């Protein structure tokens, strides 16, 4: 499917920001904004990303503009890489603007080890991590918990895991919202979501989820890197996963509910998958509280995986080098009520981030003291075998994108095409030749996630830096990749 848009429909309003005017289609309520270089824009026009973005601009209560980041690609309803803020409390909340994988996100752990010292042990480390962290779909995790404990976990988030021995007290300080969204309501969550999720804490899942050991290859800002505790050559661990079947079921349940009540709120949409309800409606409130439960599940999941990673790490590097500290943990599929300055005054809005990372600049009270002066760490996973980035949120993102930034390299080739073009065994051998050890649950998983299926992450982060949304702090190179 191709885009129906022409480049003449786009106006450059800043060096790396393009606008589709509100006049482009009669049902648009606000303009659409695209952060990109010109060549990236051409790529976005090869699928339906921008048509989907225009559809988002029609949502009731949307403020300022429907926006996409440079890693945007076609989704199902909302484009991936999208940001949409709606008026609080009567604007809409849309499960499709968050995604089925609620609080899919990234956690980065910082080690005290140097790549060169660890190098001889990396093959064994890959084996130990693959053994400890369940990967792929349909696999159970190390815990199977009953309804009462599930309810507690939904309310407490990552702190629940720590209370039960899956982590250290200091871990939560370095998680977005301290690993817990308040007012999560287990009563708003279906029994089926609980059934899908009760054995999935501590599991990575499939698709583009992964666990990676990287080394810091280059620093772009020494001062910020120091605040984040990063130095050249240091080994770090990146965890990319979300709320698993638990979140998928919650999204599915509420899309169906919203579909049935939308007419009562006089909401008419160009695409059913944008289905939504006012946040202050009974259904909107219930979804938001259930979504928070799923977000807390995801924070807990990444916490339990951290515990598994620490076990594997101890097995290989036991002794004085075994510590792994949480550098940060941030969501890229979520909705949050936040205050932003719009037209000169503070206003509460519901910020939907669908494949977009929060990127708060320096000075925000929610950031841990260690990072408050330099801005929030923004964790950008690249494609398998290329590079990932640590960025620091900038205040320009507070003025433009509701404190949001890109979330990854962004897919450019379908899974089917990638499988046709790439032979998994060959790719694994080629990566191993470059010193990258890959372990995966299925060979298809490796082929689908081959680097050629993604955009160039370097170009994506350069574009967000030039647009002023975040600045580069460190580039990471992978040495061990565990795939679902």
């Amino acid at each position: 499917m191709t885009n129906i848009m022409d480049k003449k429909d786009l106006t450059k309003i800043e060096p790396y920001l393009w606008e589709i005017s509100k006049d482009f289609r009669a049902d648009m309520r606000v303009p659409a904004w695209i952060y990109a270089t010109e060549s990236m824009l051409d790529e976005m026009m090869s699928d339906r990303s921008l048509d989907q973005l225009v559809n988002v601009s029609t949502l009731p209560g949307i403020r300022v503009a429907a926006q996409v980041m440079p890693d945007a690609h076609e989704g199902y309803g909302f484009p991936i890489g999208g940001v949409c803020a709606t008026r609080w409390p009567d604007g809409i909340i849309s499960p499709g603007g968050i995604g089925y994988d609620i609080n899919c996100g990234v956690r980065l752990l910082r080690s005290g080890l140097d790549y060169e010292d660890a190098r001889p042990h990396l093959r064994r480390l890959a084996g130990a991590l693959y053994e400890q962290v369940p990967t792929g779909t349909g696999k159970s995790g190390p815990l199977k918990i009953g309804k009462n404990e599930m309810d507690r976990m939904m309310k407490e988030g990552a702190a629940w895991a720590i209370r039960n021995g899956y982590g250290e007290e200091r871990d939560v300080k370095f998680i977005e919202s301290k690993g817990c969204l308040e007012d999560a309501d287990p009563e708003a969550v279906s029994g089926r979501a609980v059934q899908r999720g009760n054995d999935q804490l501590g599991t990575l899942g499939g698709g583009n989820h992964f666990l990676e050991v990287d080394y810091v290859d280059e620093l772009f800002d020494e001062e910020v890197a120091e605040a984040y505790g990063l130095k050249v050559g240091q080994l770090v661990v990146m965890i990319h996963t979300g709320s698993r079947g638990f979140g998928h079921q919650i999204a599915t349940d509420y899309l169906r509910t919203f579909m049935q009540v939308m007419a009562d709120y006089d909401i008419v949409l160009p695409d059913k998958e944008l289905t939504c309800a006012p946040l202050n409606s009974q259904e909107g409130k219930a979804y938001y509280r259930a979504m928070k439960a799923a977000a807390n599940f995801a924070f807990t999941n990444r916490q339990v995986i951290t515990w598994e990673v620490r076990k594997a790490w101890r097995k290989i590097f036991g002794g004085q080098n075994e510590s792994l500290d949480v550098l940060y943990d941030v969501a890229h599929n979520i909705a949050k009520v936040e205050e932003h300055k719009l037209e000169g005054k503070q206003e509460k809005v519901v910020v939907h981030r669908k494949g977009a990372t929060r990127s708060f600049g320096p000075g925000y009270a929610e950031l841990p003291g260690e990072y408050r002066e330099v801005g929030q760490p923004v964790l950008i996973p690249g494609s398998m075998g290329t590079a990932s980035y640590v960025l620091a949120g900038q205040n320009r993102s507070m003025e433009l994108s509701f404190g949001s930034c890109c979330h990854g390299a962004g897919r450019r080739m379908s899974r089917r095409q990638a499988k046709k073009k790439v032979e998994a065994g060959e790719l694994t051998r080629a990566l191993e030749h470059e010193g990258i050890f890959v372990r995966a649950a299925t060979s298809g998983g490796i082929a689908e996630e081959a680097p050629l299926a993604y955009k160039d992450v370097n170009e994506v982060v350069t574009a967000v830096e030039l647009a002023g949304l975040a600045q580069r702090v460190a580039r990471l190179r992978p040495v061990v990749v565990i795939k679902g």
Partner: protein
Amino acid sequence: MAGSFTFMDHTADRRLKVKGDDLESLFIEGVKGLAYLLQVDMQKIHGASVKRTIDIEAPDTTSLLIDFLSEVLTYTHIDKSVYEKVQFEFLEPRHLKARIFGHRVEGFAEEVKAVTYHEAEVSQVENGTWESMVIFDI
């Protein structure tokens, strides 16, 4: 009655086109397409047999198809099984009751997160065939 399913390109997810001589065939092809995505190897299913009953209503036939496939996917994950066969007790434009049959599996080939409403539109084309697009979130 016969039907077919074909996968078409989508940047990140899976776009399935289903066709059927009648509505039942159309819905069955959706289940087959989902099973095709999930199965590691069609020949290697030896797990215990499982069955479930689905009884759902929806505002229109398109939503009924998507909600039905969502139900199948939910049971797929809860039961860790692949469902391949369907027996309809009845299939009306906005209400269906069916039994689905499958086998337990060790794991799935693909992480199918959800069945989406995006681009779905159950319609009858000139020769009387029913068709729809179904996009799975991967």
